């Protein structure tokens, strides 16, 4: 017995037009047929980790993932709004910047630019609709939606860090490609916080040996590096050419989106080794930020803290590093959804 299908409202024509590849279009057509079947089905999520995908496969997979996540989110919309309208075309993030120039949470203005009444139904999801087909994973889309949902009367773009990272990755205003970003991240290795040890006072030296020493030992063992810290101002740390190559090769396993988040986190704490450990789940974000500002921690333990300086800086760093690391994880796992249809 065949389940009745909803009329194919061509939800993916915009995406399909954007991709010239015929195989991708065929795959998208198959997805839209599959996903417009009534919910009498079992959804099994198959997560595949595809970091080292080649270009064409990556594009195809990204398109499929985008279609899947769009369809999932659209299905939620259909549950709340039975007469689901045709989704709008792709718009660049500049549209949002234009609409929110006055930083008011005015979804109606967005509604004028993008012809869609979804944005007025804020009950289920408040995400700029143009982002839906572009984001690589559902988890990222939901996290960004939560950021938008948490905004009150005015939009504070400086507190919506995942949105900002997504905009940077989509727009790529500096026209950076992956090798350039890798080079910019590796440049932070020479002046990495963790390499510069103090020689006095004793308590600080102990703290540094305890935290930074352990971290360096772990990173040397895990990644096959050969880096040694330094205590003098004149001589820099010893970083062998082999270590640099190993780091480049490791970073090359991430794609441009993940590297955007990585760079953001590295620039926040000014240390590549710390972020390496955080992304590899060895350090939590709070620990990473405390280790990065170890001298400051040492001083505040002796002399006390000033809330409007120390605490604000600490929370700012935590939120930046957490956003960067989260972005890396949420864009590195390729998720695709398959449905198994229960035949009656």
């Amino acid at each position: 017995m065949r389940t009745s299908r909803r009329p194919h409202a061509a939800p993916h024509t915009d995406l399909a037009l954007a991709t010239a590849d015929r195989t991708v279009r065929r795959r998208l057509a198959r997805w839209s047929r599959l996903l417009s079947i009534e919910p009498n089905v079992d959804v099994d999520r198959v997560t595949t980790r595809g970091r080292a995908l080649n270009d064409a496969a990556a594009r195809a997979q990204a398109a499929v993932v985008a279609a899947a996540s769009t369809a999932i989110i659209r299905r939620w919309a259909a549950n709340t709004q039975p007469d689901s309208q045709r989704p709008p075309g792709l718009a660049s993030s500049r549209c949002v910047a234009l609409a929110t120039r006055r930083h008011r949470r005015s979804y109606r203005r967005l509604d004028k630019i993008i012809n869609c009444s979804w944005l007025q139904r804020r009950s289920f999801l408040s995400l700029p609709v143009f982002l839906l087909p572009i984001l690589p994973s559902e988890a990222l889309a939901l996290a960004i939606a939560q950021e938008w949902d948490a905004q009150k009367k005015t939009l504070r773009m400086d507190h919506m860090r995942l949105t900002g990272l997504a905009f940077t990755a989509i727009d790529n205003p500096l026209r950076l490609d992956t090798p350039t970003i890798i080079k910019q991240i590796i440049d932070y290795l020479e002046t990495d916080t963790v390499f510069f040890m103090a020689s006095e006072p004793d308590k600080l030296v102990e703290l540094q040996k305890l935290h930074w020493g352990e971290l360096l030992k772990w990173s040397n063992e895990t990644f096959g590096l050969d880096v040694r810290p330094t205590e003098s101002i004149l001589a820099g740390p010893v970083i062998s050419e082999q270590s640099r190559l190993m780091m480049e090769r490791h970073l090359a396993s991430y794609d441009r989106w993940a590297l955007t988040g990585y760079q953001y986190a590295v620039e926040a704490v000014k240390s590549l080794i710390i972020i390496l450990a955080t992304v590899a789940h060895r350090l939590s974000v709070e620990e990473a930020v405390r280790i990065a500002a170890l001298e400051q921690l040492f001083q505040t333990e002796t002399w006390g803290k000033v809330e409007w300086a120390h605490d604000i800086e600490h929370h700012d760093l935590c939120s930046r590093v957490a956003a960067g690391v989260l972005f890396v994880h949420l864009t590195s796992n390729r998720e695709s959804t398959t449905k198994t249809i229960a035949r009656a």
Partner: protein
Amino acid sequence: MPVVEKSVRAIPLIRSIVSELRKAGTTSTVRSTPYYKFCVGQLRGHQLTQKLFCKGPNEVEHIGETYSTYLRSTRLLQELQYQYKGGERDIEKTANLVGLTTTAKPKSTPKKVDGDEKKTE
């Protein structure tokens, strides 16, 4: 027989995430939001083991903690920035600092007002 990996931090983690989502505020209840359902679904799905599809031993937990830290630090940053935002005093309060008061504000059709400043000694 598969070994059930018990994670001590899983329940405090989901509680902290939900509490942060609640404090961040939504237009509807938190439980009806898709991101809440996603978080809960992820933790339920990885209850038996986190090593699904080549994930690391504590990967989902770590990502969850990162998300919780992100929400918490953004919220605390907002609160502190609001608390210490500073700004200028208005003219009335500035005048009151040195014991002066300001004259009455002129109405839209201005009449002649005596501009006497009352000095308190």
